[in-house]
């Protein structure tokens, strides 16, 4: 059986299993998985940028933008249709990143990382300050969503959100995969190694960086809308630097070697956070810091590289 067919079968097989999960698992676990899936999309954006050696400490900017685009639609236009809200999130993320990318895509390393941070904190400030419009720290509630017109009851809502997230994540991960193996995806990796050569074969470095930036922004935007739907409530904290830091952490934790790594990392993170945070809220960030140090020094490829090594050993 050719490898591509095998990979496709494995993918759909896994998908089928995951789709069937709701009937086996508790509501709380489903909720964690849903949240993890949504955030994984934002992390995927971070990972794509990291492939081009672009580290951003402000990706929560687009995450919050997407969430609040959906939130505003709920608050001011009484929109409850999931598909519309998700599309709005995607658009918000894409448009904002398309605008800011014009300035930011010129930069690398330190400037890139911190310019994103600066703008994300500006959005945080705006969301906080203009409370008449945004609700300030109270945030905005997103309740009783409908899916293609049908309103799921309270009991089935969690399942519907889970399945929707699953389908969306599967689709977007696949698209991200197509991007990664396309010439554009390879140029991104080439930029990491040698920008000069990229220009000297006639390809525009800026164009690819900008494109990746907008894709990453769109992913975070839809993630934000999704999180708003899953949690049912959004606050300005979604734009805060610690949220961006969390995305970076999960990106490094999962690894950048595969488009699936963010999903794995995100699920790992949500579950660990759920239990560890209860144990000791004052040492959570310290724990993250220490784990990050460990990864930097001992496991630069993240958890995914562990899986790769294991698979390779298994194949022998």
């Amino acid at each position, binding site marked *: 059986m050719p490898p591509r067919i095998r990979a496709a079968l494995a993918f759909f097989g896994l998908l089928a299993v995951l789709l069937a999960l709701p009937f086996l698992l508790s509501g709380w676990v489903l909720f964690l998985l849903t949240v993890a899936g949504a955030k994984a999309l934002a992390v995927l954006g971070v990972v794509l940028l990291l492939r081009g050696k672009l580290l951003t400490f402000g990706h929560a900017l687009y995450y919050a933008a997407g969430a609040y685009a959906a939130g505003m639609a709920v608050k001011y236009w009484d929109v409850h249709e999931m598909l519309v809200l998700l599309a709005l999130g995607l658009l918000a993320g894409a448009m904002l990143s398309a605008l800011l990318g014009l300035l930011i895509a010129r930069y690398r390393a330190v400037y890139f990382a911190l310019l994103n941070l600066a703008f994300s904190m500006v959005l945080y400030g705006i969301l906080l300050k203009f409370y008449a419009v945004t609700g300030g720290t109270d945030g905005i509630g997103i309740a009783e969503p409908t899916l293609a017109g049908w309103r799921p009851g309270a009991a089935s809502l969690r399942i519907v959100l889970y399945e929707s997230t699953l389908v969306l994540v599967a689709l977007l991960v696949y698209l991200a995969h*197509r*991007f990664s*193996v*396309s*010439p*554009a*995806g*390879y*140029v991104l*990796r*080439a930029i*990491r*190694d*040698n920008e*000069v*050569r*990229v*220009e*000297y*074969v*006639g*390809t*525009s470095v800026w164009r*690819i960086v900008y*494109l990746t930036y907008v894709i990453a922004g769109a992913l975070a935007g839809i993630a934000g809308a999704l999180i708003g739907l899953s949690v049912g409530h959004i606050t300005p904290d979604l734009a805060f630097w610690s949220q961006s830091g969390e995305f970076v952490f999960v990106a490094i934790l999962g690894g950048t070697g595969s488009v699936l790594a963010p999903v794995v990392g995100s699920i790992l993170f949500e579950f660990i956070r759920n239990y560890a945070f209860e144990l000791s809220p004052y040492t959570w960030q310290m724990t993250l810091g220490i784990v990050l140090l460990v990864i930097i020094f001992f496991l630069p490829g993240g958890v995914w590289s562990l899986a790769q090594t294991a698979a390779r050993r298994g194949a022998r």
Partner: protein
Amino acid sequence: MSALLETVGLTRFFGMVRAAENLNVRVDEGEMVGIIGSNGSGKTTFLNLATGYLKPERGRIVLAGRDITALLPRSITRMGVARSFQIPQLYLGLTVIENLLLSLAARCAGVGLWAPLHRTESHAEARRILAQFGLEPHAQRTVHELPEGARKLLDIAVAVALRPRLLLMDEPTAGVSTEDKFEVMDTLAAVLRGAEITTIFVEHDMDVVLRYSRRVLVFDQGLVIADGRPEAVLADAGVRRAVLGHV
């Protein structure tokens, strides 16, 4: 014979250092021109200027009748100029064939988003080019793992894959052992002749210049002090003093 590359009054200083002054060079289509000169004489600067990496303070650069002085390297590349470097500029983390495939992607449909980089058609052409350069056995290795000589060849292959009209090479045999130099240059010459690419190459090795170029330009402190057939130019005492330091 039409002029492919022409520089008119090309001038560039780095502070007090004269890297190029009033250079009027003309290279016609089909020529194979060698550039020699001692270190710091302006050879690499000339290549940097001609490909848009540096901007001249005065003067113009004309490619096939078009003024390219203000253009970016990637625009000039798209107009048919390709280049290899003194230190090979490659994507270290990617495989040999991937380095080449990216050149092909840039040349053909532009860099797309949907169809994968690794496709049957592009692979066929990439392998063909690699075979021409004797790099086929290395196709799946990452550049990181390649020996120096192979990297040099790959750097040139990446440029040739663009099917340029004009190829600029910066010291193609630098770092290659003396036994291998002629073999490398023979391979190169065959490829270039077959593809009808006009070539300008900077070289330190006089034997290589004698054997493979039909015309030699001698640079010295930013000026062209000789221009003619290799045997004549290299026999000139003034040239030998400037380039080799002795007569």
